[in-house]
């Protein structure tokens, strides 16, 4: 049980700034994920929290107490690494018991603690084996058991599932979330896998090149990404970015693309947009693959003419790559899809799920939603 606070943390390695002015607070009992590509500063953040790195600037607090100068072993935080670092020659029992051996406990107490934890993780029948005799998932659970047994204030995990195969990863994802829910302890979990972050976290911090991009619940970061980086890292296939430009006509705001013109209603979105971007600005239109519908015949209402590039059937859904002007965008359909490459189609975009980004800064200027939809009011004919 612990609150972890990072306050304006900066960390440099030579000329490289690994963390830039990083501030966030992990709440007590929270499953907190740090998501980013390799080199984003995720592991450095973890190492700074535990005390393996000393920040060049800024402060770290655990439960309100500044710990910058406190030795890692005194911070009472457990860390689980990708390579589990189990003792290969010791039994599962002794591996789990190892942190207790330093505590001067009665043998009976050690025994009961180890067995309780082993039962909780469903590895109690493996206590006499050595790590070499276990499967990947079981070894993972031993490493977790060794961390849990000493009841630390918080757990830090660095891509603990990255070495497991896909099936096992899925199983462990569910298991870890279940464990955290039952322990109600603070988990800080580092990953480059957006599925892990979305599926387990209460809140996600997204990092890119040492700076914090956004913090929020899975829903917040997925549905209301603050910039193109966040929008692009979440979802699979990821959000489509369509280049277009903004202009004014008779007081209306128009977003122009080769294949369509979106007219932004003056009230609501129009006001916001006008204040945030200059006239004739380059705008990136963001739309997720699941928010695109495809029609073989022109539907009633406004739709955008396009052409199928290729189709990728996945069994329970099909990814349809669509040629829109000179760009290829991806749409996902739930059912089996009968369209063929080079077939002409019409697409519609869900007007409550669109995002507009400033091309220069990548910052999101507007999210549309149910109250303020972004309606595409005209189309351009096929050329």
């Amino acid at each position, binding site marked *: 049980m612990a609150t972890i606070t990072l306050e304006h943390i900066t960390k440099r390695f030579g000329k490289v700034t690994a963390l830039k002015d990083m501030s966030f607070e992990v709440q007590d009992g929270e499953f907190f994920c740090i998501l980013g590509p390799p080199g984003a500063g995720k592991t450095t953040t973890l190492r700074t929290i535990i005390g393996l790195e000393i920040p060049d600037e800024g402060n770290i607090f655990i439960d309100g107490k500044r710990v910058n100068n406190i030795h890692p072993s005194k911070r009472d935080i457990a860390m689980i690494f990708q390579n589990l670092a189990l003792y290969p020659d010791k039994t599962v029992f002794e591996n789990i018991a190892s942190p207790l051996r330093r505590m001067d406990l009665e043998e009976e107490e050690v025994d009961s603690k180890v067995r309780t934890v082993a039962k909780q993780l469903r590895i109690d029948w493996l206590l006499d084996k050595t790590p070499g005799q276990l499967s990947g998932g079981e070894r993972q659970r031993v490493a977790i058991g060794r961390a849990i047994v000493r009841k630390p204030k918080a757990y830090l995990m660095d891509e603990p599932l990255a070495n497991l195969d896909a*099936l096992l990863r899925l199983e462990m994802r569910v298991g870890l979330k279940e464990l955290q829910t039952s322990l109600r302890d603070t988990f800080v979990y580092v990953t480059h896998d957006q599925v892990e972050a979305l599926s387990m976290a209460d809140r996600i911090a997204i990092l890119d090149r040492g700076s914090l991009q956004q913090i929020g619940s*899975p829903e917040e970061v*997925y549905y209301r990404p603050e910039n193109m980086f966040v929008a692009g890292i979440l979802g699979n296939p990821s959000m489509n970015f369509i280049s277009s430009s903004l202009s004014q006509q008779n007081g209306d705001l128009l977003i122009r693309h080769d294949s369509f013109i979106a007219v932004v209603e003056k009230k609501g979105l129009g006001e916001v947009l006008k204040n945030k971007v200059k006239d004739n600005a380059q705008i990136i239109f963001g739309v997720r693959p*699941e928010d695109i519908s495809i029609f073989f015949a022109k539907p009633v209402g406004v739709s955008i003419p396009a052409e199928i590039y290729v189709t*990728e059937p996945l*069994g*329970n859904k099909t990814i349809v*790559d669509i040629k829109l002007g000179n760009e290829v965008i*991806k749409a996902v359909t739930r059912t089996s899809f009968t369209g063929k490459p080079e077939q002409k189609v019409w697409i519609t975009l869900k007007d409550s799920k669109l995002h507009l980004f400033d091309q220069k800064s990548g910052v999101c200027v507007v999210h549309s939603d149910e109250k303020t939809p972004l309606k595409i009011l005209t189309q351009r004919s096929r050329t």
Partner: protein
Amino acid sequence: MAYIKLDRLTKRFGKQTAVSELSLEIKENDFVALLGPSGCGKTTTMNMISGLLNPDSGKVYFDGREMNEVPPGRRGVGFVFQNYAVFTHMTAYDNIACGLKVKKVDRNEIERQVMTFAKLMKIDHLLRLNAGNLSINDMQKVALARTLVTKPRILLLDEPLSNLDAALRNVMRAELKRIHLELGQTTIYVTHDQVEAMSLADKIAVMNFAVLQQFDTPEEVYLRPKNLFVANFIGSPTMNFLQGTYRNGEILLKDFPDGRITLSSRNRSQVDGLLRHERVTVGIRPEHLEVVDREKTSALTATVVSYEPLGSETIVYLKTPGGGENILKSIMDSDYRTELNTRKGLKFEESNLYLFDDETTELVMKF
């Protein structure tokens, strides 16, 4: 362009059988994926097609002609590997041109060909750059163009996308498919990733422990998996499996002490005719299993242990009342939310169930 026939290919390494009695017929212009977990024999199969390995028994035919004695260089196959092995000190142009230079093709013709394939790969603006300075994605495109430009009869791709990050992999998958559409080369693609096999291939050969499990179109492999291995390997999240006993039109389920599945009379008579053993496994895909309030269904209930809001969908995980390790998965709409540890009803259509014989692991029927 060529059609390929593999006739009872077997390859052993010491005591280990890497490929056992493999027979396949690959039609001209088809894109075939060899899919399976590591060690299943897929790369060994590809190496026997290219001639890098000789089979211990069995024959390889291209266009009806036996290839066993033909050296790799004369078989007219082109390779692209996971590590693209481009010449980093040469320009992208020279990399792509090198295969043609070896063949002593006329200079103007080389330039025309290189430009054609560079355009196809969308790397024509990068041709003057050193290949070592390109992104990994573009390097892989150079490697692909370098192979395609020599117009091999057969294109062999060994996990060519697995070094790319997820976003680039998505883009390259679509590009590869489009290129195949335009060039129509007979292509064999080795992968352990069922998503790549499903999305790219005309037909998938699923292998496990050196043995071919099924050879079918992606749709067939997904809709009618021949056995439990294929059913479990294809699809994400994986199919749910429930072990049980079939008796008199009813399936008693191990994980549901109070629940059972009662078959309609039409399906019952079919199962009675087809099933040899009474121990069965029922399969149902996560997208066909719906989580509903308990009152809405009479039959099976389970307890929610976790759910994952993935943005485009929500996956719900449930524990069965039997108390076993089996966790069921259900794909629900993206806005589905529920309390943990609540008991829910499970709803599904009989027509979406699969029935496997537990002893043979074979599919008995898809309802």
